[in-house]
């Protein structure tokens, strides 16, 4: 009888193992990208431990839903997603196999960071895949705008306070601090970019509408003929012509795309230059957090613009 009871206890223990909370009382936060992880750390401080699934230097549209990610998501108290269908190809199977009731869609521990930010390029009218990999809910690269970073931080602050009400004041104070540092940095970035307002550039993918609009640059074309469609010779020739006509010299590329076509285009355009910017925290070594991401990109961009515009 005793043996059977202890046997049952052992089985129950095995079945319950791994579902115990975090020993340090920290909230376990898992995010889709390093940008979200950085903001969550800014707000959560030492009350949270944060894990990002996708690396900043990989294409966030195409991430393998590895079983090791299932383990991370399984332990999450809070999952923060970029949303707008960015993770449509990899997050749903992870969430379904996570065995974690908290982070199922609609659960208290699932936060879509895109719900109260400024989204650009929301398509209206009929959309089809003839347009390429168009995102029906608008451009998901919205985090590349400091103002949106602030709104994401607010959403995270509110969610963390909801999950851990005792630390509400702590999260608020951390948010205020982040907000202040971001505002100071924004003044610096605005000053650095002010001379180049209205300059026209080309980007590889539609990753930069929020970034370019915020800092006053105009994107007039893309290396991709359509979102997600690799460069075609005809489109490349058109783009070279357009750049020559408009005196456009700068091509901005994400680190996960081949530089071959952009470099070929730049070599055909007088003064043409290819610039690899970091689309996410962790995209390059220097982009260690959300503020450093912009610091790095603005520094590089302002330098390149100075060179190509001569201003």
């Amino acid at each position, binding site marked *: 009888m005793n043996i059977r009871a202890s046997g049952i206890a052992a089985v129950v223990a095995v079945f319950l193992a791994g579902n115990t909370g975090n020993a340090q009382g920290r909230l376990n936060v898992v995010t889709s990208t390093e940008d979200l992880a950085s903001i969550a750390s800014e707000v959560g401080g030492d009350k949270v431990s944060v894990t990002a699934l996708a690396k900043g230097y990989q294409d966030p549209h195409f991430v393998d839903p590895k079983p090791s990610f299932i383990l991370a998501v399984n332990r999450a108290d809070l999952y923060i997603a970029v949303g707008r269908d960015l993770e449509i190809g990899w997050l749903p199977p992870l969430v379904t196999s996570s065995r974690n009731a908290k982070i199922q869609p609609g659960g208290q521990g699932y936060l879509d960071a895109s719900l109260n930010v*400024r989204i650009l390029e929301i398509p209206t009218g009929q959309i089809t895949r003839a347009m390429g990999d168009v995102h*029906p809910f608008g451009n998901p690269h919205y985090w590349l705008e400091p103002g949106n970073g602030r709104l994401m931080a607010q959403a995270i602050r509110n969610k963390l306070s909801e999950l851990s009400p005792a630390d509400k004041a702590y999260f608020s104070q951390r948010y205020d601090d982040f907000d202040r540092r971001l505002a100071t940095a924004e003044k610096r970035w605005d000053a650095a970019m002010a001379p180049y307002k209205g300059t026209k550039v080309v980007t590889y993918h539609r990753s930069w509408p929020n970034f370019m609009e915020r800092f006053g640059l105009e994107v007039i074309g893309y290396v991709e003929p359509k979102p997600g469609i690799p460069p075609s010779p005809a489109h490349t020739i058109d783009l070279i012509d357009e750049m020559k006509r408009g005196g456009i010299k700068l091509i901005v590329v994400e680190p996960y795309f081949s530089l071959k076509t952009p470099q070929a285009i730049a070599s055909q355009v007088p003064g043409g230059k290819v610039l690899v910017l970091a689309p996410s925290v962790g995209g390059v070594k220097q982009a260690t957090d959300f503020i450093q991401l912009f610091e790095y990109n603005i520094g590089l961009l302002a330098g390149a613009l100075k060179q190509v515009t001569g201003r």
Partner: protein
Amino acid sequence: MQVQTRVLLRALMAVVLFGRVAAASAQTADPQALRQEIEQLRKELAEVQRQYGDRLTALEARLVASAPSVVPAAPGESIPQPQVTSGASKVFNPDIAVIGNFLGAAGRNTVNPSPALEMPESEVSFQAIVDPYARADFFMSFGEEGVGVEEGFLTFPAIPGGLLVKVGKMRAAFGKLNTLHSHVVPWTDRPLVTDNLVGGEEGISDAGVSVARLITNPWIFLEATGQVYRGDSADVFYSSTPGDLSYVGHLRGYQDLSDDTNVDLGVSFARGHNASGVVDDVDAGRFATDLWGIDATVRWRPLQQANYRTFLGRSELVWSRRDQPGGVQSAFGYYVSGDYQFARRWLAGARYDRSDRAADEGVRDSGHSLLLTYRPSEFNQIRGQYRRIKYGEGPKANELLFQVLFAIGAHGAHPF
């Protein structure tokens, strides 16, 4: 649009105004009269502008009322959930996709010839979240023999105890290949070991219940799956009484070797009754089949170049022990395959496969294939396969197989 209309209107009025002033100045040279005329015109213009302004405002109001417009919000404002083209009635519709699989074959095969051109199956999927506790996935196959439920199951993702429970008709968790739909296998066909030992195209696929659990440990990802089925699966299992269930067990271990490389290992077991003892619809023999399998996968995908370079190497070994009237037949089969993506849209692959026949261990087929795949986009792919098979009875087959796969709609992501 509205702004444009206004600008146009103003321009038009300016032209009219200029024309009338010019005409007036030609008639009278009196500055006083001119001034009066201009004053009069100014009043008329203001009146016209006011009238048009009112009309435009009314029109705008009607437009706003009739269409749910998506107005970009100013920074700092929160914006509502986007309303795309679909009306409210479509909101709860499941994700629907159709995947077409068109095949062509040329060459010689006397044992198992393929039609020159065929559309063996089109898969229609319906996927949605059922309620806060479950999601459902349906995959219907529309083939030349009619319509069938390839899979249709309910998943409970959040059951206490860390369990993942599925109920319905499913492809069994026996190895890797058996769980995959035709449109995600890296070939135009399935290897000989699948055809001979694991039920061919249909595979071990049946109505049943599946329970999977993560075995948490400090080292690797480990998942154990147990499944119970009705007991009818292609030519593998046959159920003559309701008690003739079949059972499938799978243990999967996974480990990241680095951010770019990982290994996936699995051990599988399946057991059920077979049809070899059935005489005049009565299962006189009560014979059973046991299957054992080992699967191993190595993946390499350098994260920064993930769109351009990948490698997937995979092998599955299957042992079949089939009890039948003539005695037990112990057959063995395996395949080894590798697929390398060498450009954004191109993959090259090779496969070697060999298998005894389940009902006749003495007959061994072997084959090898070379493949080239072109993917214009995620939703469309064209594949060519050169295949040589040496059948156990002696004949050799030499074939070129073609495949066009195309998908429309919203198809859920596949498990890794």
